[in-house]
Structure formats: C-alpha cells, structure tokens
C-alpha cells in the first residue's frame, strides 16, 4: 500500500506547506541568534538587518496561512493530514511571535553602552544559547516527527525559567549598585524576559509536535523553574 495520496497535487500541497514551515523555522532561528549576538556584542550595526528579517518571517506567516486555507477548502484533510495542517497553523503563529521577540531584542541594543561588563552579559548569553538550542531541537523534532525529542524540549523549559531568573538577578544586582545604570538595565531586563517568552513559544511548538505525532495532547503540567514575579 502506497503512502502517497491518490491525488498528486494534494501530496504536493502538503509537502509545500511543510517546506514553507521549515524555511520559516530556519529564518526564525537565524534571527533569534543574530538578535542575541547583537545584544551580547552591543552590535548596533546589525539592528536594521534583524528588523528587516522579521518582515520576511511575517511574510512566511501569511503565505502559510494562505496555504492552510487552501488545503482546508480544497482537501478537507483528515487524520494525519488534518493534524499536519492544523499544527502548521499553530507552529507558524509561535514562530512569528518568536520573531517579534527577537526584533524587540534587537531594538533594545540601541540604548546600551558599549562597555557593558562581562559578568552582566554572561548569564544572558547562557540563556540565549539555551533558548537557541531549544528552538533548534524543537524544529528538529518537527522535521523528524520525533515525539520524544519534542517532549524533552518541553521538559527542558524549566531550565530556561531558572536561567532567566539568574540572568534577571545579575541585571538587578548591577542596577542596584548605581542608579545611573537604571536606563539601560531596564532594556536588559526586557531582553531577558523576551528570551524567556521565546522559550514559552518553543514549548508550545513542542506540545504541537507531540500532538501532531501521536494525536494526543501531553498530559500533566510542565515542570516549571523559578518564576520572576511580573
């Protein structure tokens, strides 16, 4: 028995949707990395490029929306095809939000002084690297339809929460030493929080991948790390 649809164009449309999502994912990944680098290196020259790449991500989102609408209208997908279609819709929304958060982080670079101390940025860098790894792993789990890997990402968000807490503490420490630091420290606090939020979107994607693969939502609540009071 063949795994291909009897209608070839249906097969192609589904493949096209998956390809678009993978491209959108890799664009989001680069943008998140670039924005992170820009903050750590206080690289003000890359801000415009990062903002521009967010437009690309948004375009992908609308393109994917259109593809999904067409699939729903033309094919009335069922079972795995339905889950694939609906999951693409949800994942593209989360990727777009991660893109917005990266853009927001890029914008925070502008007011930062060029001589930020290493101990201030060290924890933020570690957080950024973890979030990057999480995004990479979750996209990998999507491409390979790997339930276990997606669940691993979902569980690991606890570490993102913990690192966010630590990174926040170091910024607050720095801030409390000298009130003059208040202005740009606030931006760093927001940048840290943005990474934590990106982490939450990544766990959403992980949940969606689990649903896509097994057709069931993950049971129980996700392990949570230290939480910053909002």
């Amino acid at each position, binding site marked *: 028995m063949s795994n291909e*649809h009897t209608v070839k164009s249906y097969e192609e449309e589904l493949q096209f949707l998956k390809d678009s999502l993978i491209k959108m994912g890799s664009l989001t990944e680069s943008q998140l990395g670039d924005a992170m680098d820009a903050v750590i290196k206080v690289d003000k020259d890359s801000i415009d490029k990062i903002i521009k790449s967010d437009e690309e991500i948004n375009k992908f989102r609308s393109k994917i929306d259109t593809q999904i609408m067409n699939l729903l209208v033309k094919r*009335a997908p069922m*079972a795995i095809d*339905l889950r694939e279609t609906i999951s693409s819709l949800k994942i593209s929304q989360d990727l777009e939000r991660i893109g917005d958060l990266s853009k927001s982080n890029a914008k925070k670079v502008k007011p930062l002084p060029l001589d930020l101390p290493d101990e201030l940025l060290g924890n933020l860098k570690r957080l950024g690297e973890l979030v990057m790894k999480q995004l990479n792993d979750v996209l990998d789990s999507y491409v390979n339809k790997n339930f276990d890997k997606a669940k691993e990402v979902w569980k690991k968000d606890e570490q993102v929460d913990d690192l966010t807490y630590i990174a926040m503490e170091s910024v607050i420490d720095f801030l409390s030493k000298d009130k003059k630091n208040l202005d740009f420290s606030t931006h760093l606090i927001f940048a840290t929080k943005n990474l934590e939020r990106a982490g939450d979107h990544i766990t959403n994607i992980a949940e969606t991948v689990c649903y896509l693969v097994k057709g069931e939502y993950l049971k129980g609540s996700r392990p949570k790390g230290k939480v910053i009071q909002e």
Partner: protein
Amino acid sequence: MNNIKIKSKNLNVYYGDKQALFDVNLDLNEKEVTALIGPSGCGKSTFIRCINRMNDVIDICKVTGNIEMDGMNINDKDLDVVSLRERVGMVFQKPNPFPKSIYDNISYGPKIHGKGETKSELDQIVENSLKKSALWEEVKDRLDEPGTSLSGGQQQRLCIARAISVNPQVILMDEPCSALDPIATAKIEELIDELKKTYTIVIVTHSMAQAVRVSQKTGFFHLGKLIEVGNTEKIFKNPDNKMTQDYITGRFG
C-alpha cells in the same frame, strides 16, 4: 455510552464461493448513528443487509455467525422476517417511492402490518411520519399527488417517512444522499440528527465529511473485514490503524 442495540459476533457472509464478510464483530449502540465507510465492495452494504435479513432474497447467499438485536438472534430460521423488517427500516441510495400517492406511500406499511385500522388513525400516522421526516409542511396540501412527482431530496425524505411509519427501532441507510444535491443532503443530515433521538441508525456512506458530521461511531471495512471501529472523532483525527488512515486521507481507494 448508550446500550448496545445490535451485536454481531463472528459474522461471515458468502455469495456462493465468494466470501463477502469475514468474522465481523461490531456493536451498534441504541439511539446513536453508526457510519460504515470503506471502498466499494468492502462489505459495508452486505453488513447492513444482514441486519434486516435482506440477504435472504439472494439464493446463493449464506450467512454464518451471530447477529442479535436486543438479544434476539436475527439469523434464527424461525424468526418472522416480516416482523423483523417492521422493526428495522431501510432507506436506499436512490429514492424509490412506490408509484402511488404520497399518502399511500406512507400508509402502505402500517396497513400491511395491521397498524392504523381506521382512516383517522392512518391519517395521524401519515401526518406524524411526514412531520418526523421534515416533509409535512412541503406536502400537506398535495398528499394525493404521486410520490414520484416530488424532487429527489423530497422523495428521499418520503422514503424515510415510509420507513418510520411502521414505528421501527432501527433505520438502515445505504448511501442515502449520494443522489442528492448539497441542500437536500443537508436536510437529510439534519433529519438524521433529529431521528437519532428515537431510532438506532446505521448509515453507509462514501463521504468522509458526512460520516464525521452525522455519526457518533464509525466502522471502516476493507475487503470484507472490519478493520477498525471506534468513536467517530477519534477515527477521523487519529485512527489506530494505518489502513484506516490511508483510506480516509485518500491514500488508496
């Protein structure tokens, strides 16, 4: 979950040397709609024809195994088939009203089953059946006209009214909408939703979307075997069997 109305155990059907059903075990719940899907020739119609012993009319047909309704063995040789068919009505793919008036189409069944002895009783049965099949408002002023003068969708609802006129417990529908336009189909589907409050319904359909819309339980047949049966939502979102998935997603057929 509702009580089991019909239970088949290791049901086999043969047409001469050819086996059409293989050990089918399928429970149909009372006052629920069960949809049977599968490619042509997979045995779904053969299965529903076992429920009202329609296969009896085919000489070379042999049925083995068990099929029970409320614990009564449907295959029992001594069973009164006429009384069985009074309890199990059937609606076919193409509307097939009798070449008689709308009124007579409906009163015929009750008359031969000895129901509705007086004219006013029959009038009441005709009116109730037409109301239940959502046709009354459209035909109440022309009950004397031939049933065949109605539109396709109306004729199918007339056939449903005819089936329910003898007050059955089960209604079998073999692709009841395949000859109808979308509006007439929608009316039948709306009607099925209403009828399931009173009757146990089994519908054979080639439309996946229809199976999802009207049924609570779905069974997938392939080459005479019941491959998978379960909650309709589950079957169409996340079936357990790969063959079911391949069929409903259009990967073979």
